[in-house]
C-alpha cells in the first residue's frame, strides 16, 4: 500500500471512521428493505473499506473513483428493476406523465430554475412533494449539498457521474487531445447551460430532458412511437455512447460532466462560490510539471484552477510536490500550530472527504443494496 504525505495514522483513521459510521448505520438501516439488511451490511463494509483506504493511503482519487463508478453501476439496475416492477417497462407511460410522477433529478434543477423564479411554475411533470424524487425534496437536498460541497457533488454524490469518470480511466493513453485551455472548452459548459436554460424558458419545456439527456437510456425514456420520440431516442443513444463512453475513453476526460451537463455548469457558477471547500494551489511549491492539467478529468485545470473543479482529488494525488490540496476558506491547515495528530486529523481535506463521502453514501445506499440483492439473486 503506497502512502503519501497525507496518509493518516490508524488512530486518526479510526476517529474519522467513527464519525462516518453514524450516518452510515442510520441511513443504511433506514434504506434496507425487507431481507436487505445483509446487503446493507456488505455495502456498508465496502464503503468503510474504501474510506479507510482513502484516509490510510492519502490517495483520494483512486478510491473515490472506485466508489463513484460502483455507485453509478449500482444505480441503474435498481432503478430499472423498480420501473419494470411498477410499470412493466422502461418506457415513460402516459399515466406517469398525467399524474406528474416523473422522478425529478438534480439535472432538471437548472433547466426549471428560471420559470420557477419568474412564474412559480415547474416545467416538468414531476411530483411536488412526498417522495425522495419529488421536486421540493430534490431542491432541499440540492441546497444543503451545494452549501457544503459545491461542485464536489459532481465527483462524489451524483449517481450518473461514474459513467464517464470510470470510462475516462479505461485507456492508459490519451488518443483524443482536448486542450483544457482552448476557449471553446472553457466556454462550452456555460454556453450549454445558457442554451438549455434559455431554450427551456422560451419553449416552457424541459428541452434537456426531452432531447439531450444521455442518462435516459439507463433510466426511462419515451416510447418511440412517433417521429419526434424516435429522433429523441436516437439522439439519446448517440449521446450516451458518445459522451459517456467513447469520448471519455479516447480523451481521458469526463466529457459529459465536464462540458455538457447543465447541472455541472450551474454548480460551477453557483456551488463553487458558496461552498467552503476548494482545491487550491500553493504556487511556491508548484514546479509547473503540468501533470494536474494533463490529467484533470473535468477540464478544470488551466492557468488557474477553474470554478468547474469537482474536487475529485486527481490533481492532488498526482502533484509530485504536494502543491495542491483541498482548502477550507483558504486554509490548508485549520490549526497549523496544533499537535501533529490533531493538525493532520482536522485538515480540510479530511473534513471534505467525510462530508462528500457521506453524501455519496446516503444517496447510494437506497439503490445500491437493492441492486446488490438483485445481482445476487440473478446468479
Amino acid at each position, binding site marked *: 500500500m503506497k502512502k503519501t504525505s497525507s496518509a493518516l495514522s490508524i488512530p486518526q483513521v479510526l476517529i474519522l471512521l467513527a464519525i462516518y459510521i453514524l450516518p452510515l448505520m442510520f441511513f443504511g438501516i433506514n434504506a434496507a428493505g425487507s431481507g436487505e439488511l445483509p446487503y446493507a451490511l456488505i455495502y456498508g463494509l465496502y464503503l468503510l473499506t474504501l474510506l479507510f483506504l482513502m484516509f490510510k493511503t492519502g490517495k483520494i482519487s483512486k478510491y473515490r473513483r472506485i466508489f463513484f463508478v460502483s455507485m453509478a453501476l449500482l444505480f441503474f439496475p435498481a432503478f430499472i428493476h423498480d420501473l419494470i416492477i411498477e410499470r412493466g417497462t422502461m418506457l415513460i407511460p402516459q*399515466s406517469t*406523465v*398525467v399524474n406528474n410522477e*416523473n422522478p425529478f433529478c438534480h439535472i432538471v434543477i437548472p433547466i426549471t430554475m428560471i420559470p420557477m423564479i419568474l412564474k*412559480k411554475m415547474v416545467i416538468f411533470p414531476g411530483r*411536488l412533494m412526498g417522495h425522495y424524487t419529488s*421536486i421540493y425534496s430534490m431542491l432541499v437536498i440540492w441546497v444543503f449539498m451545494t452549501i457544503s460541497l459545491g461542485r464536489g457533488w459532481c465527483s462524489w454524490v451524483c449517481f450518473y457521474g461514474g459513467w464517464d469518470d470510470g470510462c475516462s480511466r479505461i485507456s492508459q493513453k490519451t488518443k483524443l487531445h482536448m486542450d483544457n485551455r482552448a476557449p471553446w472548452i472553457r466556454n462550452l459548459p456555460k454556453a450549454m447551460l445558457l442554451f438549455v436554460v434559455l431554450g427551456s424558458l422560451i419553449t416552457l419545456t424541459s428541452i434537456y430532458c426531452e432531447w439531450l439527456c444521455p442518462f435516459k437510456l439507463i433510466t426511462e425514456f419515451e416510447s418511440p412511437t412517433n417521429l419526434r420520440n424516435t429522433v429523441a431516442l436516437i439522439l439519446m443513444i448517440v449521446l450516451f455512447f458518445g459522451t459517456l463512453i467513447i469520448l471519455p475513453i479516447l480523451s481521458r476526460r469526463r466529457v459529459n460532466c465536464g462540458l455538457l451537463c447543465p447541472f455541472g455548469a450551474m454548480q460551477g457558477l453557483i456551488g463553487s462560490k458558496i461552498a467552503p471547500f476548494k482545491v487550491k494551489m500553493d504556487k511556491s511549491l508548484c514546479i509547473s510539471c503540468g501533470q494536474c492539467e494533463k490529467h484533470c478529468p473535468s477540464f478544470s485545470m488551466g492557468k488557474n484552477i477553474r470554478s468547474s473543479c469537482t474536487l475529485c482529488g486527481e490533481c492532488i494525488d498526482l502533484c509530485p510536490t504536494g502543491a495542491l490540496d483541498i482548502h477550507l476558506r483558504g486554509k490548508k491547515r485549520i490549526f497549523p500550530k496544533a499537535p501533529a495528530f490533531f493538525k493532520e486529523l482536522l485538515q480540510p481535506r479530511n*473534513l471534505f472527504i467525510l*462530508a462528500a463521502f457521506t453524501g455519496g453514501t446516503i444517496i447510494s445506499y437506497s439503490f445500491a443494496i437493492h441492486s446488490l440483492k438483485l445481482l445476487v439473486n440473478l446468479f
Partner: protein
Amino acid sequence: MIKRLFILILGLVSMVTVPMGFYMSRRYETFFHRALGLQVDPNYSGGTVIAQYYDDFRDDAGAGSLEYPLHQYYEEGTLDLLKYTVYQPLLDAPWSEEPHFWQLSVTMAHFSEHRDDLILRIYLDFMEGGSTSSPAPRQELVRFDQQHPWDLMAEIYAPRGQVYLYDSTGKVVDKIPLYENTEEQRYIIRLPLKGDLEQILDGRITYHAVITGFYDEISAFQPLRREASLRNSGGAADGRTPRIFDMLCIEDNSQQDILSAANPEIPFIPVIPGQIAQPSNSTYLEEIPGPTQQEIQAWENSLQKDDLDPMERGDLLFKLGRNVEALEYFTQLRKEDDNPLILAYLGTLTAQQAADKPVLEAVALVNKSFELFQEALAGNPPPRDRAYILIHRGHVSRHVPNSVFNKAVPGAQDFLGAAEILEPLGQDKSFIKELYLYAAHCYEIAEMEDLKELTLLKAKVIK
C-alpha cells in the same frame, strides 16, 4: 484563533449539513413550499383548473335507498363521487401522447382495489342538437334535460383502463386511455380535441352530467333489486328505479330530489347538467358598461335640483368625477349626518387623492381611506349600505398597488361579499355580474389564476 475556530465550525457544519439535508428533505418540503409556492406548470398537469364541483360524501345511495351488493368485493364508497374537475383545454401539451386535449377528472370517496364493476359516465353538451336518452335503451333509466341534450359521452370502464366515447346516436366513436391516480383517488381522462370537440376552443359554455353505477355486461348499468344479494344491488322501489348510485349535484339540485322524482308514470327522470363555462381570456372588464352621455347629462340636470336628497347630491358629484367638490361636500355632510355611507365615499375620495402625491403621503392617505371604511362598517349599517361600503373598499383595493398594500384578495372578497348581500335583495343581475368581474380582476392582480377563472365562470352564468 477565533477565526480558525470559526473555520473549524464551518467545516464541521458542512459535514453535518450533508446528512441533515437528506434526513430533513421530506420535512423541509412543506417549509420550502410555503416559501416558494411552486406549482407544476398547467401544461404538464392537464391545464388550468377552470371549475371544481364537489358532491356530497356518502350520498352514493341513489334516491336514498340503494344498497351495494353484499359481497365484500363491493366496498362502500367505490361509487361515491366527491369532486369533478374541469380543466382549460390544452394545445401542444409537452410530454403528452395526445398533444391537444381537454382534461376532466373525477375524484371518488373510495378507490377500492376491486373497482372492476364501476361504471362512470360523463355526459357533455357543448353544441346544438344531441340526445336526451342513454346510448342504449334502459341503461341508467334516466332521461336528460331537454334544454341540454348531450353530444358526447365518456364512459369510464375501469377494469379495461379505457374510456369509451359515444356520440349522441349511441355509437362508440373513440376509445381513449383512462388514467388513475390511486393516491388522490381520481380518474383522469383526456378528451382529444378533434372533430366536434374542437368547438369548445371558442370559449363556449359546456354542460356536464356525471353519474355512477355498477357495471353489468348485459345492460351496462346493473339492474337493481328490492333486496341486495351477494352480486346484485338492492334498494329498488320497482324495476324503473334509476340505476344511478351517485350523480354530480351542483348548485341547488339535490340528488335525492332528482332521483326520487322517479314516477311509475314517467319511466325516465331528468339529470340536470352543471354549467361550466370556458372562461375567455378576453378583457372581461370591457363587459362592464360605462355611463352613457345621456346618463351623464341626466346626472348634471339632477344636480341642479334644489330639493335633492343630500346623499344623492354627494353621489352625483362623486359619479360625475367632481372629486374636490365631492370631498368637501361629504366632509361637511359627515359633521351633520352619521350615515356610514358618507364614510365610504370619503374613503374612496381620500384614496383618490393619493394618486398624485409623493409615496409616503400617498401611503398615509390610502391607510386613512381604509380606516374610514373600517369605521363605516363598524357603524353597523343596513345590509344594502354595507354592500355599498364593501364595493367602495373593493374598488380602492383594486386600484392601490398590491405589492405595497396587499389588498387585492381582500378586495375580491369585498366584491363577492357585496354580491352575496345584494343578490337576495333583488339587485339587478347585471350589477351582480359586474361585482364578480371586479372580484375576478382583483384575483388577477393577486396572480391567483384559478380563483380568477372560477370567479369569471360564476360571472358568466349570471344572466
